[in-house]
């Protein structure tokens, strides 16, 4: 009797501090409140709903592509968006949009996950492949250029492929799974690199409104840890292996720093985003003038877009073409001293952090 009593206390005698009825099952990463599973689902989903409503991310009747990689962020995004769409009558047509880079043993497996998601969530899936768009798979590109610089291709091609897939689906907007940790990291990286133009817009919840297809980040204020927790408790089906061609399958300095901060002050992630939103940046600080690529019509500040330049190099047997040139200005973090003890300052090598 006594034994059982102390046992039940240990296992969670504490009640959920939201409903005060069920036993607390977890400590919420964002607030450290002890809450039950049901309340966690509710606050998690409700916060995202509020972000969508307050920022008017979607309009009724819109067609929305969810950038789906099979990873945790986009899987949870697909699940939550379809839930909220039903629950709150957003009247959205949701699609899953995946990119097949052609990486054997990595993307084919993660695409299997997305295909299961298609059935599980009842969302139509569109897959666009590098092979179809560019005539090259990543496997083939790596065979030509080796393991160095392959992420340059990966990142540039993926960004464009997502847009092309979206226009094939005739969607109005792309929703991506970038979370609060990602955005906080991007704020720091832009400070570290001296990129004031990107710093001024990296906290925008919607970007590319001047371009062909705007992108939005419903998880802007959602902590990575909570996304993992949600996927874990809901037993969502996602794929968690790192890209085999990404030479650095670990977190970069900035990400480690954010995790350290979160440990002693969870609110720091939101504070970094808040700082990013409030920096006094004069409106004359703009990105370079955008035109269109002469070859493919994709938006570009140069005559040819980056993808076309890289592609030309590949096709002419000069794969180094276009790699050395920095994307914009002030990219000083990339040129030299990029790595120390095998660690770089950024966590995602394929450019998925910055779009």
């Amino acid at each position: 009797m006594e034994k059982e009593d102390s046992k039940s206390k240990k296992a969670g005698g504490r009640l959920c501090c939201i409903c005060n009825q069920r036993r607390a099952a977890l400590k919420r990463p964002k607030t450290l409140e002890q809450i039950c599973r049901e309340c966690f689902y509710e606050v998690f989903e409700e916060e995202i709903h509020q972000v969508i409503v307050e920022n008017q991310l979607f309009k009724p009747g819109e067609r929305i592509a969810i950038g789906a990689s099979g990873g945790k962020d986009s899987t949870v995004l697909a699940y939550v968006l379809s839930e909220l769409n039903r629950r709150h009558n957003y009247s959205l047509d949701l699609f899953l949009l995946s990119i097949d880079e052609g990486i054997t043993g990595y993307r084919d497996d993660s695409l299997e996950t997305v295909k299961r998601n298609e059935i599980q969530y009842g969302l139509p899936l569109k897959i666009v492949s590098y092979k179809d768009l560019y005539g090259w798979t990543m496997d083939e590109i790596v065979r030509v250029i080796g393991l160095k610089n392959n992420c340059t291709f990966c990142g540039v091609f993926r960004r464009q492929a997502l847009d092309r897939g979206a226009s094939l689906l005739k969607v109005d907007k792309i929703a991506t799974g970038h979370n609060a940790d990602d955005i906080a990291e991007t704020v720091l990286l832009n400070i570290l690199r001296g990129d004031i133009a990107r710093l001024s817009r990296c906290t925008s919840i919607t970007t590319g409104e001047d371009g062909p297809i705007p992108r939005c980040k419903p998880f802007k204020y959602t902590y990575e840890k909570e996304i993992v927790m949600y996927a874990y408790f809901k037993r969502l089906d996602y794929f968690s292996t790192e890209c085999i061609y990404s030479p650095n399958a670990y977190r970069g300095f900035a990400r480690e720093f954010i995790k350290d901060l979160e440990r002693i002050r969870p609110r720091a992630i939101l504070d970094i985003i808040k700082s990013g939103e409030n920096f006094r940046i004069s409106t004359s600080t703009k990105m370079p003038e955008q035109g269109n690529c002469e070859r493919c019509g994709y938006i570009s500040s140069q005559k040819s877009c980056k993808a076309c330049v890289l592609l030309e190099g590949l096709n002419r047997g000069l794969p180094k073409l276009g790699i050395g040139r920095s994307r914009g200005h002030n990219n000083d973090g990339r040129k030299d001293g990029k790595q120390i003890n095998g660690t770089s300052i950024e966590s995602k090598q394929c450019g998925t952090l910055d779009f």
Partner: protein
Amino acid sequence: MACNSSSCQSGCFRNEVEREQHSNPPTETRSDSNEPNLCVKCKANEPMCGAGEDGKFCLDCFRSNLYGKFRLAVTSNALITPADNVLVAFSGGPSSRVALQFVHEMQQRSQKNFDASKDRSLRVFGVGVVYVDESTYYSVPSCEIDKAIQDMKLTVSDLAPPAKELHIVPIESVFSLESSDGRERLKKLLDSVSDPTGREDLLLHLRMLALQKFASENGYNRLVLGLCTSRIACHVISATVKGQGYSLSADIQYADARWEIPVVLPLRDCLAKELNMLCQLDGLKTVEFLNKPHSGINGLVSSFVKLLQQENPSRECTIVRTAGKLTPFHFNKIPELNDSSVPLASRRRQKRFNLKPSESISSESFCPLCYSPLNKSDLTSLNGQESSENSNIFGAACCSSCRFQIFPKDHSSMEHFCSLLPGPVVARAKHGDSNGNFSLLRKQIQDCLLSDSEDET
């Protein structure tokens, strides 16, 4: 403007010291031996350092380059002018030691010009030195403190004439109480802050208050801080992490005149490494043990920046350069430049470097606790609160960062916390200043007020 490649020679000065009798063994050797190994500036002497892109200076050129950065900052921004009476905040560390040295040298030079001029029309600015004694908070054995203060006094009195005095200001002087009562109150105040970062930052605010109070009561009109690029880089990151992105640009400019006594940062373009090096080379004595390592967020930030600096030696410069592109505030310049004692050249240069007039017309309101400018979102969250209690009014008037990391979590302790704060801080919140929160709030309800007088309620 902090550092571009041409003015920032932040390279390695690590292994030049063989010629001095210091211990560092050379770790790098010059790679291309074809070129004659000469200082890049004077092209005559041997450089101190054999490797790296920057920093191929000889000892003399290294020195004059560093002093040059200081002087450029001072003259371009009219940080110190002949009529001024300058107070140098001296902590005993290398940065403020160099600040003291450079201010002293500048004063010597203008003294020389004064002596040489026939009509003696050019005035020489005055210099005082102040040390804020925080031993009440940091429990350092009093014999060590006494020793350190003795050393610092010697440092100051050893400077060539004009003679300067080192003033010791206990941090509890902000309370304007008997010393034992002040110490008691300081301890209570800091103990009531549970967040270690918040406690550290509060102490920093109090230090500034103590400096301001002393400067104001003793006829100084400039306060020189030895903040260098490296420290400013850390501040950029920690302010970002604490959600102070809006007010950040106020803190990192050459001049900050939001205070009664304008604060100036003439070493803004110098790296800690360079300043340490100069202290070593010139035998400038520093007192190190007083520099407590940071804790909490500030500690994490400084080890992060240190790591980044190892990864890329220009990282600190880049961070400060990024933050330098943020729009400064109207108070980030030295006011009243029409004074005829300011040389025309300074006035012209200041015009060139400073803000456009359109940007300077703004009325900021300030957090009464840390005195950082508040942005609109801070002010609107303030309006939501309805309370007549002083402590709540105070709480609502502060920035969200202070509210989070310094204020007690529960409302019942708030009254007690406020009673411990120095009088002027509380007064700032109650009355607001000429362009403070109160008038801003007033503006928002103006159409509903029946009288223009603020006393009527």
